[in-house]
């Protein structure tokens, strides 16, 4: 294998992992309340800035930062649910949709006010910026750390959803919220939990994003958020394994588009991704792995 190919595969793996981390949250939330949370991508930005702040303040040991970011993301996700979402429960879907869109705009602009519009440079410590030789290619360590951590998170979450009582409750609500309530499941708490879990993973993706690309700004979450939603759609909205696979499919196709086409096309990267989105929505709106929903009167 040529070293260029290896390099591209590693890039695809690491980008795909980031999309997968964000997509999991989309899917979890959609599974429980059938709503696309537009503000989800902004949690990635919040995670990135938390990392930035923690690193800059230089009081916490390195190993603790990811844990703090996870906790912070959980809190931020839960807060969005409490403030923007709880109040409109029971309203028609379109209202919920407009509310999450408003929340996203509010978060982005609050970040602009308090954090400034200038992009900031960000660097992980030396250790993570190390480059490793891999089959002739020269690979950044972070690009290997990202997929491994993502895999661990995905496995942990799957086990949580499959085995624990709370996980079973989440699945029950996804299946039939009304019947789940009759079984004594408190939907409100689960929705909070799901927003929190999704937020934690998105914030973790933000930490990695900052470390991988070295630059952060208040609007950085929007595009990755939309792309992660595309990943969710590819895998079938509401399905966890689907979200992860969708993330990797998207990551690899994006890298392939940039890496194997002549460079004058690489500017069209986002057009390609969202063209793909529209195409997939048209051909298989239920996603590659999802089942078509029946339209009922």
């Amino acid at each position: 294998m040529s070293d260029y190919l290896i390099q591209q595969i590693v890039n695809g793996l690491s980008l795909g992992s980031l999309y997968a981390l964000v997509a999991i949250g989309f899917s979890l939330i959609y599974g429980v309340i059938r709503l696309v949370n537009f503000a989800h991508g902004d949690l990635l930005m919040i995670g990135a800035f938390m990392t930035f702040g923690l690193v800059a303040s230089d009081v916490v040991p390195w190993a603790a930062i990811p844990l703090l970011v996870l906790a912070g993301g959980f809190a931020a996700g839960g807060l969005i649910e409490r403030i923007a979402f709880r109040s409109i429960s029971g309203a028609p879907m379109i209202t919920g949709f407009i509310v999450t869109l408003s929340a996203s705009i509010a978060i982005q602009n609050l970040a602009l006010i308090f954090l400034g519009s200038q992009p900031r440079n960000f660097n992980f410590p030396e250790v993570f910026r190390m480059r490793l030789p891999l089959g002739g290619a020269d690979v950044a360590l972070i690009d290997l750390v990202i997929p491994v951590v993502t895999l661990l998170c995905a496995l942990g979450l799957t086990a949580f959803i499959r085995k624990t009582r709370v996980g079973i409750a989440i699945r029950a609500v996804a299946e039939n919220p009304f019947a789940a309530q009759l079984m004594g499941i408190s939907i409100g708490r689960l929705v909070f939990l799901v927003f929190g879990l999704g937020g934690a993973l998105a914030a973790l993706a933000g930490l990695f994003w900052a470390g991988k690309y070295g630059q952060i700004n208040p609007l950085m979450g929007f595009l990755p958020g939309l792309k992660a939603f595309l990943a969710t759609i590819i895998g079938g909205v509401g399905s966890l394994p689907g979200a992860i696979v969708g993330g990797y499919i998207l990551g690899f196709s994006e890298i392939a588009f940039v890496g194997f086409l002549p460079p004058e096309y690489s500017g069209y990267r986002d057009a390609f991704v969202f063209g793909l989105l529209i195409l997939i929505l048209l051909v298989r709106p239920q996603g590659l792995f999802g089942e078509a929903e029946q339209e009922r009167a």
Partner: protein
Amino acid sequence: MKRLQITPWQAFFVLIAAMALLVLAVDASGNGYFQTFTALMLIQVMLAVSLTMTNGFTGMFSLGHPAFMTIGAYVAILFTYPVGRKGFAMPALPETVAQIHLSLPIAALVGGLTAALLGWLIGRLVVHLQTHYLAVATLGLIIVVQTFALNLDGFTRGGRGITGVPREATLALIGFFTVLVIVLCWRIKHASVGRAMLAVRENEMAARCFGIKAIRLKVIAFVLGAGIAGFCGALLPHVVSVMSPKSFGLILAFNLVAIIVVGGQGSIIGAIFSAVLITFGSESLRQVEEATGVYGMTQVIVAVALIAFLLVRPKGLFGLKEPFVRTS
């Protein structure tokens, strides 16, 4: 108590009189800032009215207006930009096109038609999608169009943007078209085609059982909305004299949604009111923003206010109704 109500014809004359008065008064004031603000407000009104038709009448949720505006704007500029400077600003333009110079109304019409054509190509596919998916697909469309505008720099000057667009969009012209758009959408709403659209919005399956061609109606609403958006997009750079790929984006899409949600999705008079209200509101906030240097505050306030508003009045100010005018 008898509520104040007038007939549609009376409302039509009130609209014309009010518009004429507004245009004359603002033109006579000679205040450049005030003139620009009024022009932008009227364009906002047109956009809101057309979006309330696309989304409000049929119950779709399209965020695609900025995409069609961008297309309309760039196409119109191709024909209104001073011929002598086209070679410099748009080197990729074929010589035959570069020689053509059109007056703004015609160029804007060409822009609007181009946007409508694209709206038809995209619309006949995406109207099948459900709420979320349609919203995300049209949001994706904005990004696709912006990316092309950014990269086709032989026509658009890319990220540097086109400056020196002739300021040909007079207030009278914009006022005239605003009245036209309002009347058009009003007529549609109260004709059989509009009533059929409203039936689709209330219950698509039931409407189809009555033989209403739901998909065709949605496509019509989408294409008309796209065309008007393209037309408005074409007018805008001729007010402010600059155009760049990022001129019309997510923030604009959100503000338009905010306007029609506040107005009551489907109410034309509601959309007009709330467009005026929100444009005034955000402009005054923008003044505060500039004075205090807290950039971004306006959007935060609009977003938070919208959430609060939805809690209190989920159906907007007027819902589907047209206040003050007798419609039956």
